[in-house]
């Protein structure tokens, strides 16, 4: 992270030779390396200069040997050891603080959860819920009872209706039988056939009469 921070620091940013040649203020419009230089720095310009990355290096660089910067081994060891200890201590401190903050948050959360008031409140609400359930149960039983009554009443009604229908039917049939019996008295049987014929011949019926709209006999014609 340190080199990245160093790049973002305000102040003398590494200038390529090209920037000086461009005059008092190189236009920031020359696309700087994206993401690396802050937009407000007026001196940062691309380091590549004239050639793109696909162009071969020039002849003057033919024998160039790039060497890394010289390092003193003892100094390096000492510096590395110091840095190692420093980073160890810092990391431990950070972890310690992080754990402390987390612990505090957890404790606070648990305390808020386990407080007596909360438990009391919870129990009260559960009791209310149970009461509500009991009320619902009562309502349900009431409804079931009413349904049963309704069912019984309906069954009774149906039975009654059936009985009534049966009775009416029987009565009807009785009436018919009686009527037939009545009519049977006037039937013509082989025994009183002779008598009935004699009777008809003795009493001629005269049907020659006219009727008006009210059904009264208006005119009679004599039977010939």
């Amino acid at each position, binding site marked *: 992270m340190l080199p990245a921070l160093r790049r973002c620091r305000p102040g003398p940013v590494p200038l390529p030779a090209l920037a000086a040649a461009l005059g008092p*203020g190189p236009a920031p419009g020359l696309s700087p390396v994206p993401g690396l230089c802050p937009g407000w720095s007026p001196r940062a310009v691309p380091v590549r200069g004239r050639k793109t990355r696909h162009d071969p290096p020039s002849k003057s660089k033919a024998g160039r040997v790039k060497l890394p910067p010289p390092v003193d081994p003892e100094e390096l060891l000492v510096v590395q050891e110091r840095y190692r200890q420093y980073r160890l201590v810092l990391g431990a401190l950070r972890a310690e603080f992080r754990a402390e903050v987390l612990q505090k948050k957890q404790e606070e959360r648990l305390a808020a959860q386990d407080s007596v008031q909360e438990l009391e409140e919870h129990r009260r609400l559960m009791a209310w819920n149970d009461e509500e359930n009991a009320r619902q149960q009562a309502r349900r039983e009431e409804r079931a009872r009413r349904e049963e009554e309704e069912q019984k009443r309906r069954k009774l009604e149906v039975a009654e209706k059936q009985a009534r229908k049966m009775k009416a039917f029987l009565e009807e049939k009785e009436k018919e039988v009686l009527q037939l019996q009545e009519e049977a008295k006037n039937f013509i049987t082989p025994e009183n056939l002779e008598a009935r014929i004699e009777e008809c011949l003795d009493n001629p019926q005269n049907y020659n009469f006219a009727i008006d709209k009210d059904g009264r006999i208006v005119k009679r014609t004599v039977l010939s």
Partner: protein
Amino acid sequence: MKGRFPVRRTLQYLSQGDVVFKSSVKVMTVNYNTAGELSEGARKFVFFNIPQIQYKNPWVQIMLFRNMTPSPFLRFYLDNGEQVLVDVEDKTNKEITEHVKKILGKSKETLEKEERERKKLSHPATFGPKKYHLRECMCEIEGQVPCPAFVPLPKEMRGKYKAAMKKEA
């Protein structure tokens, strides 16, 4: 939009749900029937209110069981092993939500307190990335100097002019 009541899928509808469960509620189970007059309230509850509840409580598991019992009910499983039974036969969906909010929902005061705590963490007057702050630059505010990317600054404000004037003088 697609579906029978597509308004149920809008953010506005979902954020209108006001049942926020206490942190001890882990699972909610709904047993209901797809037919029958007595289960009507439960069906409406499942259809209209459960999306709102799930939106407000993304870490609560909600399970639906259909046609397994003769009467509809809700069952909540808390983290201490306790189970809370709520009989919802012959109740409207509004009544069911009110009941649930009363017994297991966070009260309005608690919600407001949490909201205030959350607000305390960030300061509304600071400037920075949109993810953490309200504004990024002063040029966004009405009445301030507009962003020079859209409206060029008058020459008296530009460093170029000021430097030239100084050199002249």
